């Protein structure tokens, strides 16, 4: 008699959830995805083109969705309201009265974007022509024209790095890692759309850490003449015509600079999904001080929470780009596989020195 397949519940149907679902299914398990919204793909649904190669986001989205075996059960518009552990099984109750029993839980709840209106001095939600990188990406995605609120084609667009990240005042001291490359990508996209515009980037550091990101930086400067001003934006003010006055320190020049822009784009960072907090309480797992889920070990065990049977993957463990998210999802699949095969885990890394 064949032993019944072990069952894994994946909470979150974004890229991490989809990649791990497919891998776990191929490894021979029963998989269920619990998704909050009415569609799979998470934030991939909101992006237009991905860095570094500017391929369309829907290429990856379709690839991930098509890979998914039709035997993977998906609960849409669902949230977990209660979990109970019975020995080495979990009993999960959902908001729509459905419930399921599983042998392992994988949390891939992703992230939220920083609410830019918290940075009052930047005027998001107060000045007409201040938008976020997410707003801009939506404009590209929906193929809407790029115009100021007054209906004018912007001649000068300013991108502001580190909005909501590396900022003690809003309580997020971490770097969200992908905003710099997003900004550079979007700067080039704006220049392609508006070839006569001037694009300025206000940054503290340019963090082009990923594969081919430095190439993007070079291309932005050389081909699109994007200008980089080292100095964090201090304040925005609105002119009588709706354009914006930006005050920053031109640190490399050694004195303050005042610049006009028709449109200001705030590169907003990641904040932990609001479900990190509620799920950590429900499942008794740890979060880091900044609110993202805490892995068991930074280097050797990024997918285990420390609580038997509960695993984490993707952006809910910290800001990461898409390739790292997908890699993390594959890593989680192997970790869960070994757990379910009762492969013994080394309890503690022996500290050296």
């Amino acid at each position, binding site marked *: 008699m064949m032993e019944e397949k072990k069952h894994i519940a994946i909470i979150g149907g974004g890229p991490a959830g989809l990649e791990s679902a497919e891998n776990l299914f191929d490894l021979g398990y029963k998989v269920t995805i619990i998704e909050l919204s009415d569609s799979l793909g998470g934030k991939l649904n909101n992006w237009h083109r991905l860095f570094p190669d500017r391929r369309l986001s829907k290429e990856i989205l379709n690839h991930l969705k098509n890979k998914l075996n039709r035997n993977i059960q998906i609960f849409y518009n669902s949230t977990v309201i209660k979990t109970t552990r019975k020995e080495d099984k979990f009993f999960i109750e959902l908001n729509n009265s459905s419930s399921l029993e599983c042998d392992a839980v994988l949390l891939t709840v992703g992230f939220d974007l920083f609410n830019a209106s918290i940075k009052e001095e930047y005027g998001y939600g107060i000045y007409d022509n201040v938008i976020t990188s997410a707003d801009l990406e939506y404009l590209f995605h929906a193929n809407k024209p790029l115009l100021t609120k007054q209906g004018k084609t912007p001649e000068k667009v300013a991108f502001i790095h580190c909005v909501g990240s590396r900022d003690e005042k809003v309580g997020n001291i971490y770097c969200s890692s992908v905003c710099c490359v997003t900004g550079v990508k979007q700067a080039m996209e704006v220049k392609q759309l508006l070839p006569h515009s001037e694009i300025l980037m206000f940054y503290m550091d340019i963090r082009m850490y990923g594969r081919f990101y430095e190439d993007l930086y070079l291309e932005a400067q*050389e081909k699109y*003449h994007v200008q980089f001003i080292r100095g964090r934006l201090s304040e925005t003010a609105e002119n009588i015509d709706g354009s914006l006055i930006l005050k920053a320190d031109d640190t*490399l020049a050694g004195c303050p600079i*005042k610049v006009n822009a028709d449109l200001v784009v705030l590169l907003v960072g990641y904040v932990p999904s609001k479900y990190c907090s509620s799920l950590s309480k429900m499942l008794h797992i740890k979060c880091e001080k900044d609110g993202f889920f805490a892995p068991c070990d930074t280097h050797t065990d990024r997918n285990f929470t420390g609580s038997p049977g509960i695993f984490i993957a993707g952006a809910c463990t910290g800001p990461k780009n898409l390739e790292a998210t997908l890699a993390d999802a594959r890593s989680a699949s192997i970790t869960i596989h070994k757990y379910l095969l009762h492969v013994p885990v080394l309890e503690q890394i022996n500290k050296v020195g």
Partner: protein
Amino acid sequence: MNSFGFSINKDNVIDYENNDRSLAEIVLAREPSLYRCIQCGSCTGACSAGAFTDYNFRKMHLLMRRGEIRLLQQSVDKCMLCGKCQLVCPRGINTRNVIRQIRLALLKLN
């Protein structure tokens, strides 16, 4: 007019809008490798003139881009065209030609 014993201070803010940035456009068109500059300062560290004067390539480029022509004019002649900056630039900019083009453009301006 009354004598007040003081006069109104001028501010030191770079007025990006009202500065004349046309010189930058001319020089960049003639030496487009300059677009690649990331203001890393490798040029300055190696600079022969930079060790003794306030001149350095990084600063000249920046002043030009911001349209601070007066300050540019004061210092750009101090370059000896020794080429040390060009040797170390990680972005492969033809720095000596940039200085030449700035000087030519400034002559035309005057």
